[in-house]
């Protein structure tokens, strides 16, 4: 897959695992490696500045933004002149075994789209992975409860001082906080 010697790969993986940059998932005798929550992950995500996709022979549906010649593609002229056949990235494409007809992308579709949009727009879909979703849901629930409490308070005060505006505002706050099916 990578064109690297097994011992080199083992040493590098041992280092990355010890530094908690990658984590392992064991599935019987198979060990799969994934990026852990190390800050290096952010650096890796920033590394790519895709400019042009290039199909990978033998990998249907897979396109790489890294030139087979070893250079990041900026223009056809650039890809034709840079690097050599033995360079690092020229051997990096994913190789599929027999019976593997899955479609993989060396870079996610988000990266493709991000290249065509200014950063404030592309951030809508290149926001990384969602983590701590239960914490997020707990925060949202807390926010809803707070809005409901404020709505109740506004309605009580509105009725006490006989202010239609405040009562309507209380209704507004309640609508902001309640789930859609209760509206």
């Amino acid at each position, binding site marked *: 897959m*990578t064109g690297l010697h097994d011992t080199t*790969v083992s040493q*590098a993986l041992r280092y990355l695992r010890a530094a908690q*940059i990658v984590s392992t998932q064991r599935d019987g005798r198979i060990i799969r490696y994934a*990026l852990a929550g190390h800050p290096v992950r952010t650096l*890796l995500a920033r*590394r790519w500045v895709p400019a042009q996709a290039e199909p990978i022979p033998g990998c249907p549906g897979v396109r790489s933004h890294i030139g087979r010649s070893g250079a990041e593609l900026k223009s056809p002229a650039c890809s034709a002149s840079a690097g050599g056949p033995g360079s*690092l990235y020229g051997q990096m494409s994913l190789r599929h075994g027999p019976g593997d007809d899955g479609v993989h992308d060396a870079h996610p579709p988000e990266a493709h789209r991000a290249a065509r949009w200014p950063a404030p727009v592309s951030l809508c879909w290149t926001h990384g992975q969602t983590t701590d979703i239960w914490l997020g849901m707990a925060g949202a629930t807390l926010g809803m409860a707070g809005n409901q409490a404020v709505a109740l308070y506004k309605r009580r005060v509105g009725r006490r001082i006989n202010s239609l505006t405040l009562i309507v505002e209380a209704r507004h706050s309640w609508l902001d906080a309640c789930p859609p099916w209760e509206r």
Partner: protein
Amino acid sequence: MPAERAGHRVIDSERVCRAIAALGDPESIRTQAQHHAVLADPTRLTLLTCISAAGPISVSDGDRPA
């Protein structure tokens, strides 16, 4: 302008302040340098690129090209 730089001749004070703010504390810079050093090794960068793009992935799936 920070007091320790009061005696220095400053051409563009706003930019100096922005540069100081970006640097943060020296320990933070050292930490960032270590993070970049991880990616400065071609083997590690190769593996991390593959894992980042396709992980979780088993390295035994790969084979050396002829």
